[in-house]
């Protein structure tokens, strides 16, 4: 009993905000898992992070207008998905720049909205609330919306699961099989937008990347199949969110002041700890590690995808050794 008391400070299970945080945080962790898995597989962490900054714009706009932050997060994230899709974020060569440009624009707008909020309403804490968030500030009346949006994100991922996986691993193969890449990518961007919007509500806009990318990246070292990786990611996300809530609740008695440490800090900390642990104890090597091309940043450079840099011999059918094709030659061998 005393151990239980040491872990869960008195009042943990009877506090309304805590229970709302546990419920909503759980949903968010579950939704982030498959979206994050696809983000890691597609090497899209930067775009995923750009979404979180976009939700910051939405959150600050919502503050300014006076509506609930969740609405702002969702609308802004979906608009960001549209903008990034239109500018071509899914193209390998331009994704870095497109995500960056959209990111820069949204940061500028966030600055403006937060400034206007602080001057017009004298609520000076808006910047910190939007950017760093607090799970305990989530209103429990939000939970039907959260569940509905989470369900929508999961449905998008579920419907497009197989083509999404295929196009993550090999876009060329997916195209050859008749996968409509534009449609699949739009579904993916929309699902990530929703997942990030929900995550922004729990850990704050600029920290939501932790929930999206961290559990999935760690899961890839524990599991081999996509389904298991998603299950691992969901479990890691749940542990991080719920563990963060417990620690934050306990920290009200910690120094330096009697106001507790931020819950977002603990969630991020637990996510990072799991990622490091996956390095020490993970059984599987992330496929990316085997491929030296993924290690070398220079190989990621857009220039490297320039066909001229590839050895023409590999591309030109005429350069292939005809001996392998010609049945007559095979006989001789």
């Amino acid at each position, binding site marked *: 009993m005393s151990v239980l008391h040491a872990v869960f400070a008195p009042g943990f299970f009877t506090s309304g905000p805590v229970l709302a945080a546990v419920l909503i945080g759980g949903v968010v962790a579950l939704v982030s898992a498959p979206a994050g898995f696809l983000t890691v597989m597609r090497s*899209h*962490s*930067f775009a995923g*992070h750009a979404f979180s900054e976009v939700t910051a714009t939405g959150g600050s706009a919502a503050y300014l207008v006076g509506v609930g932050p969740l609405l702002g997060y969702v609308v802004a994230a979906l608009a960001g998905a549209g903008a990034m899709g239109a500018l*071509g974020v899914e*193209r390998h*060569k331009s994704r*870095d*720049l497109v995500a960056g*440009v959209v*990111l*820069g*624009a949204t*940061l*500028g*707008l*966030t*600055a*403006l909205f*937060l*400034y*206007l909020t602080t001057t017009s309403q004298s609520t*000076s804490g808006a910047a*910190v609330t939007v950017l*760093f968030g607090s799970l305990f500030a989530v209103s429990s009346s939000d939970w039907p919306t959260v569940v509905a949006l989470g369900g929508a994100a999961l449905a998008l991922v579920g419907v497009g699961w197989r083509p999404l996986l295929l196009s993550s691993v090999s876009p*060329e193969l997916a*195209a050859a099989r008749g996968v409509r890449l534009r449609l699949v990518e739009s579904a993916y961007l929309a699902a990530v937008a929703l997942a990030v919007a929900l995550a922004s509500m729990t850990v*704050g806009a*600029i*920290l939501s*990347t*932790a929930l999206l*990318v*961290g559990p999935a*990246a760690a899961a890839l070292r524990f599991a081999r199949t996509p389904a298991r990786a998603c299950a691992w990611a969901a479990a890691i996300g749940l542990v991080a969110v719920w563990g963060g809530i417990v620690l934050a609740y306990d920290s009200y008695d910690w120094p*330096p*002041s009697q*106001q*507790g*440490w931020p819950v*977002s*800090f603990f969630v*991020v900390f637990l996510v*990072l700890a799991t990622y490091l642990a996956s*390095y020490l104890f993970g059984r599987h090597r992330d496929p*990316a590690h085997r491929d030296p091309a*993924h290690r*070398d*940043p*220079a*190989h*990621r*450079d*857009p*220039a490297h995808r*320039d*066909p*001229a840099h590839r050895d*023409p011999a590999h*591309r030109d059918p005429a350069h292939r050794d005809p001996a392998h094709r010609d049945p007559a030659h095979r006989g001789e061998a």
Partner: protein
Amino acid sequence: MGAGLFSSFMTGTWLEASIVAVAAGAVGFFVVVRGAAFAAHAIPQGAFTGAAGAALVGVNTLAGVGVFSFLAATAIARWGRRARRDVVTALILVGLLGLGSLFLSMSLEYSAQTFSLLFGEPLAVGTGELLPTGAIAAACLALIVAMYRRLMLTSVAPELAAARGVNPENVETWFLLSVGAATTLALPVVGALLVFSLMIGPPSAARFIARRPAAAVAVSVALALVTVWVAIAAAFYSGWPLGFFVGVLGVVWYLLGRLVHARTGDARSTGDARSTGDARSTGDARSPAPQGPAAGAALRKALAPPGISS
């Protein structure tokens, strides 16, 4: 009000912002060429934690920003090569920011100061800070000039760089350190969130407009200077945060660059640059032009904006 913009009390601001723009524009060109936008975004945000920590402990902000820029840059350069680079960058970023949220919650007078750290407060720059700023900028530019060939080689022709005995890991580390130096300069002026815009917007357009690397760096620096000057004037008159104008101008440059490129580029490349369709297949569909191993040709080829080089 009109005279106030160029009054002596604004001298520090103009000089400081111009120094920042030159450094950010030059470093930013290589950020874009090397596809290091995420790192260039993560380092300033990580440095924000340094600023918050410095405020908490009560030391000089510039020192806190410098230390955390250095930490973020070396961590990304070293660990980014051992796993998925984008994942590692993202996690270093949120790890530092998470620490930043802890620092913020512990310090008492956060809100106004936090806002200026995140979004910049250029109108409060004194002339006394010009000396350290100028020194860091000079060091940053010297680093870029000294590494110029190796930076270009490792980004554009990695095989050739390896054959010449260039260690890409060292180049990456030094490069990210120069990004960190530019961050240290720019953060107090334009804020942690908008340093990135200054490093991405002008060079992205420069890359579309200019064909040769040296010319592109020059265009990038020029556009960065125009950006901060316009932003200072606009922020001065409107009272709105400087970062807003920097962010918006960054997008304007990018879109203008794309437009100019679409007008002047040859028919094939414009189709690519504008098409929002799947360019992975477009890139593969075109037959590769015969290309010698000459580094010069490879450099020129790779410097072309994404639309052309596809």
